[in-house]
């Protein structure tokens, strides 16, 4: 009897979630792969017979699409500047927050976490106002120290940097919490031993704390990098990819092809190129990490 129960119950427990995941995550991957080899578009949605297989055509077209190439360039721009900034900022703040346990530290932990739980549209509305060339707070503050108006979102390179500032502001919270959790897991005896040996505070930081944060740092680097390669929400809500495609990212390109121009097949092909890039970068990181620990 018990054996029978044990056979049936586990499936009942996992069924709802697993069925939903299958329907909305696993099957869609196969669908995406199939349609990336077709010319599926709005017409094909209404009439399946209008869809035809075109082989690797979409993939070839993508690499001669100037907008797609630009989106790759922009995405690397975001990743190369944004990822190190997020990691350095969140680690520094976590170290500061780990210094004490009084209410001040708890309050500021909440303050630094706030941006990451703020709705992206609210963020866009608020920052759009802050970045406004004429009425924005930033340009007003700069005018006080007689700096000319900065076109925060109107010039391609400056716009990219403006989006990075916003994304770093929003991205600190979650990583800071991970670093903080790791810092609190370091045994006190390590610090006590170092103190008895007369190590200076900087020595403790560089020879004890940072090495022991190796796994947290690796975790944060991998997840942040994956997140930033899919950089989407910030340009989507702030600039819609403009000016002159100056802020378009790969993910935004895919969204626009898919949902604005309804080129589903083309967009699906783009999404697989992004997926491949993410896998390559992640595997590379694991390889480097492995080498590090072997040394």
């Amino acid at each position, binding site marked *: 009897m018990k054996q029978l129960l044990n056979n049936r119950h*586990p499936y009942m427990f996992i069924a709802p979630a697993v069925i939903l995941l299958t*329907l909305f995550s696993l099957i869609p991957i196969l669908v995406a792969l199939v349609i990336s080899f077709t010319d599926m578009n709005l017409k094909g949605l209404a009439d399946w017979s209008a869809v035809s297989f075109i082989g690797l055509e979409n993939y070839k077209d993508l690499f001669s699409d100037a907008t797609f190439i630009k989106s790759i360039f922009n995405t690397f721009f975001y990743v190369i500047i944004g990822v190190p900034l997020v990691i350095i900022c969140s680690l520094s703040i976590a170290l500061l927050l780990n210094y004490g346990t009084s209410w001040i530290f708890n309050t500021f932990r909440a303050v630094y976490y706030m941006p990451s739980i703020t709705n992206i*549209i609210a963020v866009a509305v608020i920052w759009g106002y802050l970045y406004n060339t004429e009425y924005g707070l930033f340009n007003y503050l700069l005018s006080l120290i007689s700096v000319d108006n900065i076109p925060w979102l109107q010039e391609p390179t400056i716009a990219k940097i403006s989006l990075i500032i916003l994304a770093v502001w929003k991205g600190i919270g979650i990583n800071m919490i991970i670093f903080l959790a790791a810092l*609190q897991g370091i045994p006190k005896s390590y610090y006590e031993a170092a103190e008895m040996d007369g190590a200076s505070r900087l020595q403790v930081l560089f020879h004890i704390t940072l090495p022991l944060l190796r796994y947290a740092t690796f*975790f944060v680097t991998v997840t942040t990098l994956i997140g930033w390669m899919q950089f989407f929400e910030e340009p989507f809500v702030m600039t819609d990819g403009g000016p002159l495609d100056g802020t378009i990212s790969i993910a935004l390109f895919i969204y626009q092809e898919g949902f604005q121009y309804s080129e589903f097949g083309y967009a699906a092909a783009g999404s697989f190129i992004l*997926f491949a890039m993410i896998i390559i970068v992640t595997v590379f990181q694991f390889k480097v990490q492995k080498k590090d620990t072997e040394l």
Partner: protein
Amino acid sequence: MATATKRSKPEKALVIFLLIAGGVLVSIPFLWMISSSFKPENEVLAIPPTIIPDNPTIENYIKLFTSMNFAVYLRNTIIIVLFSFLGLLFNAMAGYGFAKYHFKGREKIFYLVLATMMIPGQVTMIPVYLILNAMGLTNTMAGIILPGLAVAFSIFLFRQFMATIPDDLLEAARLDGAGEFYIFFRLITPIAKPIFAVQGILTFIAGWNSFLWPLIIANDESLYTLSVGLSLLQGQYANNFALQMAGAAFMVIPIIIIFSFFQKYIVEGFTMSGIK
């Protein structure tokens, strides 16, 4: 703290000063939002800007409900949040199933669940839309809610936690004749309170903030969520920054209040899940 005894006063003062300076910098957008939301329309464009409103008014907040349909958006958002808690229950059940039962294909199915975490949202977005379209669920509440119910990361965290619950406890309950679902709801859920707290608040935040999927699926304004409504407001009242700020504040402040009550669980939750 490790070396608390040996700390010098100036060092602590410096740390607190840095924390406050950074904190103010991070909070500027929020402070500016709240201050501007209480300004009348003409004052919000004044140069130099006023830091505290000269003529504070709550007119902007009232206008959200009279000129815009924020009551409808709020209702839809709350519906989404409530259903996402049903999803949370599914994830918890799945996590428990993977942690506490031995069954055929357990490892394989669990790896598939984990694999879904690595797929970028952009890959599945279009097929999910096509699937919902084929099921006739575009432009319906069900179409907005269903794809977000099961979350692989959440299943993973639940499994990690449930695995720490001793098997003897379950066996004892079974010997007493308790059914499997009784065990889960009466015995396991109270033990798993901390992980439910973390997941609960994260689920609430995600549901409350949900934007992209409602935007893709909903054509009728009657299905819009708060964030879709807010982006509509941004388009319609492009130069009325005071109204925009009131809309933003209406979205952000409930989250901040709920978060400040539950924030200690979040740090504990990450410590618990063993990410170190």
